[in-house]
């Protein structure tokens, strides 16, 4: 086992551990902050797999914006003294669904990339990603951006429908 693999395992364990803590802690703010640790550890895994671009964008977008958005939503909707998680009956359903999704995704990835090595060639540089996105996958990429735009417009329409504007 090489040093890279050991560090990768450490990052992976950190990601899983902090994700479990994020799900089980009673304070929502702590959940959000454990999520930061999870996302950072996953970014570390990306770096070790030479996908640097994805790693930095992950930190920039998810830690810098999405977690801040989550915390902002928490602060707007709750009183300061009662920021604690409500445990409902849905918790177990969510856990089962999460497990099913994890197993499904894991099986897909393992069957698709089983035994592949990434030694020797750097697959995650900005150049290779740009080549792949805008040469091989340009149609799915454009369709995806259209879907996102539609979702954006839909969100605006829904959020303004209640008012008399």
């Amino acid at each position, binding site marked *: 086992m090489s040093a890279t693999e050991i560090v990768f395992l450490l990052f992976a364990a950190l990601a899983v551990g902090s994700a479990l803590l994020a799900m089980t802690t009673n304070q929502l703010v702590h959940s959000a902050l454990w999520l930061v640790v999870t996302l950072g550890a996953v970014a570390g895994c990306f770096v070790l797999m030479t996908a640097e671009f994805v790693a930095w964008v992950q930190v920039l977008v998810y830690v810098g914006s999405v977690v*801040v*958005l989550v*915390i*902002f939503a928490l*602060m707007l909707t709750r009183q300061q003294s009662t920021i604690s998680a409500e445990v409902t009956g849905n918790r177990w359903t969510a856990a089962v669904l999460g497990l099913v999704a994890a197993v499904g995704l894991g099986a897909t990835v393992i069957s698709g990339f089983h035994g592949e090595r990434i030694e020797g060639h750097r697959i995650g540089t900005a150049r290779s990603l740009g080549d792949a996105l805008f040469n091989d996958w340009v149609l799915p990429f454009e369709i995806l951006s259209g879907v996102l735009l539609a979702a954006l417009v839909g969100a605006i329409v829904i959020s303004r429908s209640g008012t008399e504007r």
Partner: protein
Amino acid sequence: MPDVVDVVLRCVLVLAVFMVLPLVIGQMEHKAMAHMQSRVGPMAAGGFHGWAQLLADGVKFVQKESITPVAADRRVFELAPAVALAPYLVALLAIPLGPFFGQGNLIGQDLDLGLFFVLAAMSVGVLGTLMGGLGSGNKYSYIGGMRVAAQLMSYELPMVLAAASVAMAAGTLSLVGIAQQWEPWWLITQLPGLIVFFVAGLAELQRPPFDAPLADAELVMGPLTEYGGMRFAMFLLAEYAGILVLSALTTVLFLGGWAGPFSDHIGWLWTLVKVMAVAFLVIWARVAYPRLREDQVNSLAWKVLVPVALAQITLTTVLVVA
């Protein structure tokens, strides 16, 4: 073996820059602000024009007791200053200072994706203030934290868009590469991007006139209200380190980094001079403009900076393709 020495030397150098330059900027803020307001600023500490004022402040902060309020969320409260400070040190690792007497480029580590690395590190740094606001158990901190979150969400987008415009013009995401591709006419074609980047950076650092989260007249000190002693000093140091990173990034992206006469030998000096000039602008903005109201902060971001940044990207695209 020389590799190890090289890495250690570079790390020590980055650490030295991180320890010294923020203090220089802090001292500059003391003196420049004082002279703009027709006073002299600190004069006693250290003798010559109070040069040791910040060291004296540091000694004072060390002697103070570090208090954690009973209502505070203990771990979040105590971790927040470190979260605010450490990312700026990480960001400095990837920012180039330029050629050093023909001995190659002075930089911690030349990353293929340096621009995104630094922007990502900066976006983590501001989580520290947010944690301070959430963890203090104080309503002023809490309101300040909400303002921090709103401000961050608004200004992240224009900042990244403006930086992306330069990266497109240079055709690379490496900070060294961008500075090497820089040409003087970028000062005109990238001017809107420069202004957007600088203003959004000020807002991201919560520097005046974008200090509505701190707003000492209405929120005591916002997220920093409950902090004292070394923890407050760390937040203060994070603010100056943030100014340093923002100035250095502005210099490397928009002002050509080490471009200047004899840049093969004293390029690093040119970078330092430009960084200090931008840092002076940051301080000047604090003295010159009154604080923006909370709604003005957000409408400036969405109604002015984002459209300007998008227009800048369109312009850059046309110039690159044409």
